[in-house]
Each structure stands twice: as C-alpha cells, then as structure tokens.
C-alpha cells in the first residue's frame, strides 16, 4: 500500500512481511513505553509542581527493591522476546534453502556486476523470476560494499579477501522493479552504486534469458579459463597422480596437512586459487602457485562454476547448453 507519505517500503519478498511484523511489535512496545514515561513525567510534574517558594520540603524516599526488581525484570523479559524473534528471523534470513537458484555478483567501485549461471550478464540490474528462492554469491574486487534491497528487507556486506564470499537469499513475491543500493560507504560514487531488481513472471523471465543469452555459461567460461591459466596441467580430469583431478571434489570434505578437515565449498576453492599454501591437502607438497592478480573475481566465480559442474553430472558444460536454454530439464 503505497500512498503519498509511505512509512515503509514495498513488501516484495517472503521476508518482508516477517520483518515488518517484528518492526510492528518493536514499535508497539517502544511506543507504549515512551508514552508511559512521557505521561508519568507529565502527570508527576504537574501534580507535584512547586506552588510557592515556601512549600514544605519533600520527605526523602530512598528507594524500593520491589519497584527496582519489577522494572528491571519485566522489561528484560520483553527484551528477551525481541531478541528471540529477531534472532529467529536473522537465522532464516541467512540460511539459504537447498535448491535455490544461484546468481553471482561482483561489487566493485562503483557498480554491481551480475552473472547468471547460464551466461547472461548485467550491470546494476538483476532480473529474477517471481516465486523462486534465489541465492546470490557475492564478492568484492576492491573495498567493502553492501548489497541492499529494501523491498526484500535483505542486506549483506560484500567484503574483499579470501574466505569472504557473502551469500544472500530471497524469494520475491511480487512482480515489479525495486531499488538496489550499495549500503557500505565505498568512496566517491558510493551513492551512485545503485540499481534495479526486476522481478518477472516466469514466462517473461524465460524470454529475457533467451534474449540475453548467447554468451558462454559460467561453467563454460570457467572451463576456458581453466585451460588458459594452465590449471589443466596438474588438475585435468584424468590427471596423474589421481586425486589431483577435481571431479567430485566440490561439496565433499577434504583432509588437510596439520590434521584439520574442511568442506570444499566456494570459499575453499577461491582460497586455494589465491592463497594455496593456507590449506594444503594431506599427502601433497605445497607446490601450487598463487593466481592472485592473474584472475579477476568474476574469473574466480567462473572457475568455481566449472569445478562445481565436475561434481554434478547434469551440469557439465558439454551437455549443458540445451538445458540452460529451456531451463527445465534436469
């Protein structure tokens, strides 16, 4: 309900209504508390105002443990509700559902570069279908930015550096165009780093995909980079010794020198490309060179897409094109 003087942004995701409900509760409690204090002070100030300089001096009232306990414990309990409700929302907000459609975002001074897995690219715009959970995996090429969609009530900082993929998910519920803002001061054109989220009916979305397709998918682009950067020299699918092959690595635990085990996720892969000696696989010498400075954040995302495809047979580049265009078969 947008009128001339809106008090809150449009509600366009599954999260918006929930955040607004929490806000309503917080406002109600705070409003009541404020009114209570204002009213009490007003009433007491009027009732006990000094009417003449010769008014008798008040008797001292030093305190009351009963009152102190009451007005400590009751607000504290209300605050626990605020905490629990907020924590619950927060947990949901940052726990993407399984099977969410992945889109990749790179923030840099002063624009948002978006890559769809099927290859479509956008700058400062993001086209998505309504009613589907979308997960954004985001990286920064330079300073800290923050991806903020007020209508969805979501925000996450995008921080440069290894181990720093930020993930944000949402499920848009209303077709329309919504503001995208950068919410972390990032320099001269920080307030220019804005854009639009376009939520479309599924059919329109498919049409948009087809219209803007034609690029290599991310996995295909990644495969190309894999060859260009010489990764294939050691890590080709049929590599010797075996296990240097990256097939079926993504999503599985990896044992490291020093005894720790980590999950081979996006952050692990990126770190291994940029700072390979940080986590060395057990049984292998630390000889992998670093690629820092030789590949952009977008390139890293493409490589990751390719490596992920090596673990999910249905998404291998060679077989992928037809599926991506129609976007249906699995």
């Amino acid at each position, binding site marked *: 309900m947008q009128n001339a003087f809106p008090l809150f942004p449009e509600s366009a995701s599954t999260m918006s209504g929930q955040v607004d409900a929490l806000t309503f509760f917080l406002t109600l409690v705070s409003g009541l508390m404020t009114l209570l204090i204002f009213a009490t002070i007003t009433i007491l100030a009027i009732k006990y105002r000094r009417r003449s300089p010769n008014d008798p001096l008040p008797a001292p009232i030093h305190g009351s443990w009963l009152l102190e306990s009451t007005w400590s414990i009751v607000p504290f309990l209300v605050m626990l509700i605020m905490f629990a409700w907020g924590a619950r929302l927060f947990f949901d907000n940052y726990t993407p559902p399984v099977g969410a459609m992945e889109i990749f975002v790179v923030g840099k001074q002063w624009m948002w570069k978006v890559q769809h897995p099927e290859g479509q690219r956008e700058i400062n715009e993001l086209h998505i279908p309504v009613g589907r959970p979308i997960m954004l995996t985001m990286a920064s090429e330079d300073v800290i930015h923050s991806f903020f969609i007020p209508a969805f009530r979501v925000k996450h900082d995008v921080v440069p550096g290894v181990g720093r993929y930020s993930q944000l998910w949402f499920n848009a519920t209303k077709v329309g165009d919504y503001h995208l803002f950068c919410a972390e001061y990032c320099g001269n054109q920080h307030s220019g780093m804005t854009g639009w989220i376009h939520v479309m009916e599924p059919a329109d979305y498919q049409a948009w995909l087809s219209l803007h397709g034609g690029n290599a998918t991310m996995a295909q682009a990644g495969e190309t980079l894999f060859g260009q950067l010489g990764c294939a020299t050691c890590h080709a699918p049929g590599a010797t010794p075996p296990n240097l092959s990256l097939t079926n690595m993504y999503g599985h635990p990896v044992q490291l020198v020093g005894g720790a085990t980590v999950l081979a996720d996006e952050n692990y892969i990126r770190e291994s490309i940029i*700072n*390979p*000696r940080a986590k060395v696989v057990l049984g292998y010498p630390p000889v992998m060179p670093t690629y820092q400075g030789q590949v952009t954040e977008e390139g890293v995302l493409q490589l990751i897409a390719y490596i992920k495809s090596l673990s999910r047979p249905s998404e291998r580049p060679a077989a992928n094109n037809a599926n991506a265009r129609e976007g249906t078969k699995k």
Partner: protein
Amino acid sequence: MPETVAAAHHHHNPALVHQFDNEEQQRTASTLGMWIFLATEIMFFGGLFAAYTVYRYLNPHAFAEASHHMSVKAGAINTTVLICSSLTMAMAVRSAQLSSKKATAWFIIVTMIFGIAFLGIKAIEYHEHYVEGAAPGVNWTITGNDARQIELLFCFYFIMTGMHAFHMIVGLGLMSYLLTCTLKNRFSAAYYSPVEIIGLYWHFVDIVWIFLFPMLYLIGQHLKT
C-alpha cells in the same frame, strides 16, 4: 563548633604538592596513577597481540616460515639482559628507600646500561633483517607463494618489537631524570615515590618482552616449513 581540617601544613615535606593533604595520600595516589597507566598499556599491547594472534592462526605456514628468520640466540640474550635490568631497578628502589644515594645512582646507571645493551642487540637484529631482505616497506625481497603473509607477520614483528623498543627508550629517558634527581639528593626514605613508580614502569616494559620473546621467537621454531 566547626569541624574542619586545616589544609595548610607548616612543617611539611617540601616534596608534598599542594593538592594533597599528606605524604601518604600523595604516595598512594602516584602509585595508583602509575598502575592505571600500566593498565592502559596492557590494553594497547593487548590489542596488538590479539591482532597478531588472529593472523598467526590464519596463516600457519607463513608463521612457521617467518619464525625461522628469528635469532633465538639474540632473543635469549636480550631476555637475560632485561631480567637483570629489572633486578637492578628493584635494587635501585630499595636503595632509595634506604636513603643510599650512591647505591641508588649506581643501580640506575647499571639498569640504563642493560637497557642500552638491549636496544643495541635489537638494532643489530633489525639490521640483519634489513640486509637479508626481510624488512617490510623498506627492503622486502622474500618471494614465494605466501610471501604476502610472511610480510604481514614480519610487519607485526617490527611493530611489536618496535613499540616495545620505543617504550624502552622512554624508560631510559625516565631513568636519566631519576639519576639527575638522585644526584641532587631528592630521594630518601621519606620520599622515594618517583623511583618506585618509574620502577613499576620499567618492570612492565620487561614483562611485555617476556611475552614477546616466546610469541615471536620460540613458539614457531619446531614447525616445519
């Protein structure tokens, strides 16, 4: 009948400053003041140590590599030197308490010599690092896969030991002041508070080194690179 305490003393110690009512109050106030100052120093170095610990934890390889550039011998000698200097400082305080002007002066001088020795050995170490190309921002020639992380850890080495050395230089300045006052007969059993509180400062600087030595020199020695 008014109950008041006269603020003016007619036969007071010339070292008593006007805001205090008596020597006891002045002495305990000065000591408390120094302890609080040392608390601020703990927070200052603590922040630095915390940052260093985070980076060490995140970069075990680089840390092992960086550790092998440290000279345990130099560090151990410096540790011994500083511990001895704390002993002589404590002796100086005691001598001042006993109104032994000569002993006080000599103990302060020996403490200063130890301090200068420490700084000298540190300077040699710094020079070694510079010559071998391990001085970030000035002469860095180490390369390799985690050169950046090694450089980061070396940064911390220089900042941590540099901050410590700076505090030692300030300490030497304070020692000179103490020496001058001692030679001018300012201290005695009735008034030795500055010796005591500067002694506290010196001991604190020593303790910081007791943390630095294991953290920077000893812990990483067994790690393989």
